[in-house]
């Protein structure tokens, strides 16, 4: 909120917020274990972030919000012994939720061509859609105008569904330990509030993120050496976790082989052999229930 705005306008916005809080604050689900978390707020009439605030319960929080009309409200995903201590080392970290941030502006959706545009400040080129860098001069800090439409949000939602599926099937978390919230603009936050993850350290959390993103997959884990420098896949489609995922995607790829794609990886008679293998597998796959 800029200071140059007329006082009338900021009063009007504040009144709208006040009306909203009095109407909707009871609908907002409060976080668990409130007294262990740090809250922070930004206000209309004071600059900066006001931190190190603690509430003993939801009633106290709602009363505070209704009275002070903040324009932003935050709470820590970490739990502290002394959440109101001013220095991090005095707070005494007890644990934290596991939070995933799924943001659509990192995903190249087809609709971006309809509502996004870019302009290169270096060479002046411009265009519609999503580019990593200026296609003419290669400059990477292009100016972007972006919009988030329903298609974008549904792409983010698909990613959320995949993540929640993985958290429940692979990690065995129950659906009441996994909470999905709209992040307010471009995507979703997925919160895991569970004793299993609470005390995990930084390395352990990075391991879980790597697992979800498939980072660090090594072919040696799913194969054994075969004849002629080949690798034999030992993972099966029905195996748990990435074993199954790897096997299913290899199988999908084989099933999709035709003369042209087989020629990319083999030569001579082997092309024919591969295509015939794919045909045979396709026939057998009719009855398999793990294929879609």
């Amino acid at each position, binding site marked *: 909120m800029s200071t140059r705005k007329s006082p009338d306008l900021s009063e009007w916005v504040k009144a709208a917020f006040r009306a909203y809080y009095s109407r909707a604050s009871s609908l907002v689900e409060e976080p668990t274990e409130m007294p262990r978390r740090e809250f922070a707020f930004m206000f209309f009439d004071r600059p900066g972030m006001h931190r190190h605030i603690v509430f003993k319960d939801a009633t106290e929080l709602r009363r505070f919000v209704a009275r002070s009309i903040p324009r932003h409200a935050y709470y820590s995903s970490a739990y502290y012994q002394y959440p109101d201590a001013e220095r991090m080392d005095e707070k005494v970290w007890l644990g934290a939720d596991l939070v995933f941030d799924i943001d659509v502006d990192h995903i190249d959706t087809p609709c971006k061509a309809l509502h996004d545009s870019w302009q290169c400040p270096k060479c002046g080129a411009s265009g519609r859609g999503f580019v990593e860098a200026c296609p003419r001069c290669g400059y990477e800090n292009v100016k972007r105008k972006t919009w988030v439409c329903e298609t974008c949000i549904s792409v983010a939602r698909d990613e959320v569904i995949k993540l929640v599926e993985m958290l429940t099937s692979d990690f065995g978390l129950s659906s009441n330990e996994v909470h999905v919230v709209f992040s307010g603009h471009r995507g979703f936050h997925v919160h895991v509030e569970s004793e*299993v993850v609470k005390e995990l350290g930084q390395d352990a959390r990075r391991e879980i993120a790597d697992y979800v993103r*498939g980072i660090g997959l090594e072919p040696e884990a799913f194969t054994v050496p075969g004849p002629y420098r080949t690798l034999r896949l030992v993972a099966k489609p029905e195996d748990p976790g990435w074993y199954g995922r790897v096997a299913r995607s290899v199988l999908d790829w084989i099933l999709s082989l035709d003369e042209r794609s087989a020629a990319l990886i083999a030569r001579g008679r082997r092309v024919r052999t591969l295509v015939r293998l794919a045909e045979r597998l396709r026939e057998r796959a009719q009855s398999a229930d793990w294929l879609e």
Partner: protein
Amino acid sequence: MSETPVLLERLDLAKYPFLPETQEYIRTLGLAVEDLCSSAGTAVLRRARERIEAAIERRLDTRLDDDVDIEILSFPAAVLLLRLAGDKLLARRFAVAEGKRVSRFLAQEPQEKLVYVVTRGFGWKIRKFNGHVGNLSYDFLVSFGDFVSNVPEYRGLWKLVNRPLMRGWVPVNAYELARMAEEATKRYVEGKCLEPPPEGVPPSIESIINEIRSEWSKRMERLGIPKVSKVKRPEDAYPPCIRAILEDALAGKNIPHSARFALASFLLQIGKSVDEVIDVFRAAPDFREDIARYQVEHIAGLRGSRTKYTPFKCDNMRSLGLCKWRCKGVKHPLQFYRLALRRGKVEYEEIT
């Protein structure tokens, strides 16, 4: 799975110092700091010192003293000596050695006892599982939280993504479970040794600590950054990840924030000046001297929190997509640099 009763012998208490039973037994023996000067105390101290010296010399000490009580008490005595010595690196070295000792003992135990020791000692959740996934067979299931918190490294079969994961459970074999116990022991012992030292220590103990300190510093001198380096140019000793970022930076490519941080903190740590580091970024398309200076000075610990930052360790470089290599025996880019200076080169291969 602790339905099967497991009988602990007194010798087990000497092998596994982290068990609640061991701590209870030590309490009943009631040895106070002052007692360490008695004749029984001297024997305990001698054995404690042996264990520390073995750690300093990187020797695996799996000896068990004939007098089991002396063996049991030598662990808390060694911890006491290290708390008084107040040297973090030495504490780490001792913790590593004790971890290896424990995993060596555990590898020889029947499975029931192995499971008892790790569930009772570390609170792990474990289930029996005799099955195989892929071409590997397993003995147990551990919960994923216990797994990711106690693996020795985050690559190969120790990386969660390369393991079957079934509704929160990770299959492991008995050898792997003992190896995880090594990590947990290491953390336990290190934590113990870093506790603040007690007061009222007899002078005779002071002299033992001084002797340990001097042995340790002799050993450390041989490990420091050598005065004569074995590479022609210092750049030849940079790890491949840092060299790749450096080349991109000098070529004027726009490199991500994380890569800039890794490069700047690496160069500062090996002794480059703030100005030398700023020069590296001069070719960046969005270079602004004032901003670059502010950020490099921050990383150098001249601003803000006054912390001098170190680059990311290899595991984190990999997760950030900045590492595509496997460097033999290296867990941190700075470790690569020091090893390369000392040996002339470090073996590494590119992961495809």
